[in-house]
């Protein structure tokens, strides 16, 4: 059964339509990449799935339950967590306080302590800086904090918006290595990325969005074909 199913999703901002009939599904322990040029609606798609934007039409289902139009605070409790673009950590709060906030959306509070230990084991740097102000962490460390915070709600589906944004190449590889561990733990992961080649070679499947619609669906094997990826990304004649 699909953990996450998106059917004919149309979304936008007020009278401005951004997405037109997006559909895909994602199973346990699988990853989906979403790529496309700037302004095509990649982040809008994640925000709509996570409940930040109410869709104009279409259905989003999580574990078989219709979550279309539900509030973000309810969706996270149902098992879907979003790491927003730009990380959006609470820079004035400590690393520990940021992590504690991640537990807010967790259903099973009795295992909170264990979950905290698990994310600290996955990202040991957070342990070192536990009492530091989160705004003082480096970009890579902040990204790790943002992912950890999202993981603490015990999501079955994790959405990541531009996890490589502003990070050095070696740090990006570190982050993607950690994502592999998260996926191995049976969490389904959706990654929106500007770096099309990086995510296409990482994810089990990648969809290319242009003009608010899915232009192509690529497997990880297809991602090696630069021509195919470029064609889907920039359109015919590129």
């Amino acid at each position, binding site marked *: 059964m699909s953990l996450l199913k998106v059917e004919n999703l149309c979304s936008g901002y007020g009278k401005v339509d951004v997405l037109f009939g997006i559909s895909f599904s994602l199973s346990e322990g699988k990853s989906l990449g979403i790529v496309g040029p700037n302004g095509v609606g990649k982040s809008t798609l994640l925000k709509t799935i996570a409940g930040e934007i109410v869709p104009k039409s279409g259905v989003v289902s999580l574990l078989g339950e219709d979550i279309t139009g539900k509030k973000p*605070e309810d969706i*996270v409790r149902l098992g879907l967590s*979003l790491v927003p673009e730009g990380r959006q950590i*609470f820079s004035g709060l400590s690393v520990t*306080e940021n992590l504690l*906030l991640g537990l*807010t*959306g*967790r259903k099973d509070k009795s295992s909170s302590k264990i979950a905290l230990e698990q994310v600290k084991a996955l990202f040991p740097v957070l342990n070192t800086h536990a009492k530091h102000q989160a705004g003082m962490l480096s970009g890579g460390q902040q990204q790790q904090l943002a992912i950890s*915070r999202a993981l603490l709600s015990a999501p079955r589906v994790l959405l990541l918006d531009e996890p490589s944004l502003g990070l050095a190449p070696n740090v990006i590889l570190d982050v993607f290595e950690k994502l592999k561990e998260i996926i191995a733990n049976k969490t389904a992961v959706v990654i929106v990325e500007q770096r099309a080649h990086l995510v296409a070679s990482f994810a089990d499947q990648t969809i290319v969005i242009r003009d608010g619609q899915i232009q192509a669906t690529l497997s990880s094997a297809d991602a090696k074909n630069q021509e195919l990826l470029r064609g889907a990304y920039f359109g015919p004649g590129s």
Partner: protein
Amino acid sequence: MQAVLDAISLGGTYALAALGLGLVFGVLKLVNFAHAELITIAAYIMVITNDLPLVVSFLIAALSATALAVLTELTVYRRLRGTGPAIMLIASFGLSVGLQKSFELIFGALPRSAAVAPWMTGSIEMANLNITIASLVTVGLTIFILLAMGYLVDYTTLGLQLRAASADFKTARLLGVRSNRLITSSFAISGVLAAFVGFIVVVENPQVEPMFGLNITILALVGIVIGGISSLRGCALGGFIVGFILSVLNTYLGNARVYAYSYLFMAVVIILLVRPGGILSKGNEMERV
């Protein structure tokens, strides 16, 4: 000594009013002008129920102010959420005026008066100084409430969620912070704080009329601007500074006290010129990325 105590007492009172305003602003980005009416309703109830034991009278006043705060959130602000800050601000103005007129209809346009806690108007001798009991109680009460608020904000889950929501409500919701519950809680706490302010003010000025809480709310708003509207500590500090300066000016200006507000606002302008974002504005925070 009495002058210093009075200044601390008035500063503390304004700090509580500013804290109530700051709490709601933090989560809703709304300057709630109707906070004045929360202070007023608490003062009215204290006057009306002054024949009851003080604790009972205060509990009824606090419940009334809290209920009114929550009611305004549920019936007005919640429905307008997402319409934009200008509409919310105008709604808060409208609500404030509407409540004043309602008070006029219910309690009359003339001031309602009764000695609330008359024992507090007396004075005691300490180290050859004559100190009013009201000042001592106000200072003690304010310190207690500020410490309690500090504990709530710094050491409880609700406080952590309030701080997170003040910084970035969208992200807080993505993490599971329940927006309605948090906003209603903020209004409820602001109602309790308003009740304390109403009580403190009505003890020294037992003439309650429909605009009773307006002056202190406007000055508390000035306080949250100079303290730093983005931080609860800043709000409390700003409120304290405004009250403190006003009290000192009233004491030392003698016949020229009519100019107290001019000097106060001059001080405010100077503070804002030096620290445009307020004394404890977030601009102070170092951020690496």
